[in-house]
């Protein structure tokens, strides 16, 4: 069935575009427009697959369709924010670079947005499924704390004017936050666990899996586009901040 191959094909296109961007700088002018168009198109088609094409789930009925929005949000946040931790380590240990700092800022903001919305969607889903909006489940708590940690990170960035200090300190905060995510996961796992086990695609109806994969690819494209534009914005702001002063008045007078 050709529809089954759709998500993978679209993923291949997205990855191809990114490779174009990285390998051939000349393509950068149009690559992001194409990727943005792909994301928009996929978003427009996504409700068809998620809401009508996919069948009702045997146990959970219709509300399970929320996961077609909830899980992609969460996955992308869990991609963006840990990437921010890695970049922060890179910034402190390997190389101080404005590009890395700008990319961290972009990832943090996009990650907080996706994580925050995804968390909200998760609690909307939890209500019909578990009967409550919130339960002390490891994934729920870790995700919530992650969003909070990076809200703090973004706040800190806004409160420091000096670009070097901002970059260094926010990298430190991100590293401590990264260590915290792992620990929170284990702490809450010890506390209790009632979350659904992630079902592996083999056991689930193919017609349920395809929209899920489709949504993931849609959000992946969307996130890449957002991060790219946010990164360019951060870099432009940084360039203004770090421009060296002009060389005038170089006369040296000794009385």
């Amino acid at each position, binding site marked *: 069935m050709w529809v089954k191959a759709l998500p993978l094909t679209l993923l291949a296109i997205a990855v191809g575009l990114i490779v174009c961007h990285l390998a051939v700088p000349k393509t950068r002018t149009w690559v992001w427009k194409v990727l943005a168009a792909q994301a928009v198109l996929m978003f427009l088609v996504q409700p068809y697959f998620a*809401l009508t094409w996919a069948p009702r789930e045997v146990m959970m*009925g*219709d*509300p399970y369709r929320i996961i077609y929005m909830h899980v992609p949000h969460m996955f992308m946040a869990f991609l963006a924010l840990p990437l921010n931790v890695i970049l922060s380590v890179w910034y402190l240990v390997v190389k101080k670079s404005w590009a890395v700092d700008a990319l961290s800022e972009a990832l943090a903001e996009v990650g907080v947005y996706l994580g925050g*919305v995804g968390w*909200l969607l998760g609690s909307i889903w939890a*209500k019909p499924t578990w009967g409550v909006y919130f339960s002390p489940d490891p994934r729920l708590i870790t995700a919530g704390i992650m969003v909070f940690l990076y809200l703090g990170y973004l706040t800190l960035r806004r409160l420091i004017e000096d670009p070097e200090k901002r970059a260094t300190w926010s990298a430190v905060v991100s590293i401590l936050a990264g260590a915290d995510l792992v620990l929170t996961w284990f702490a809450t796992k*010890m506390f209790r*666990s009632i979350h659904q086990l992630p079902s592996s695609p083999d056991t689930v109806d193919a017609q349920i899996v395809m929209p899920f994969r489709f949504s993931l690819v849609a959000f992946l494209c969307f996130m890449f586009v957002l991060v790219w534009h946010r990164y360019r914005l951060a870099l432009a*702001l940084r360039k203004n901040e770090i421009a060296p002063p002009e060389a005038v008045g170089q006369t040296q007078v000794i009385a």
Partner: protein
Amino acid sequence: MNTLLLADELKPIFIGGGQMQGGWEFVWTAYAVAWAGIILYSLSLWLRVRGQRAKEGVK
């Protein structure tokens, strides 16, 4: 982990035991929230990028 034993008491609560009926209002709410997020964040980013470009154009 002894604490995990406690988790058994708190297994998922499936309402009624059989197939769950209805619940579309939750789906609509979730989609509304997600779309609001997508549109609002994209819009805010677009405005900021445009503002920055305008500022650089002036220079």
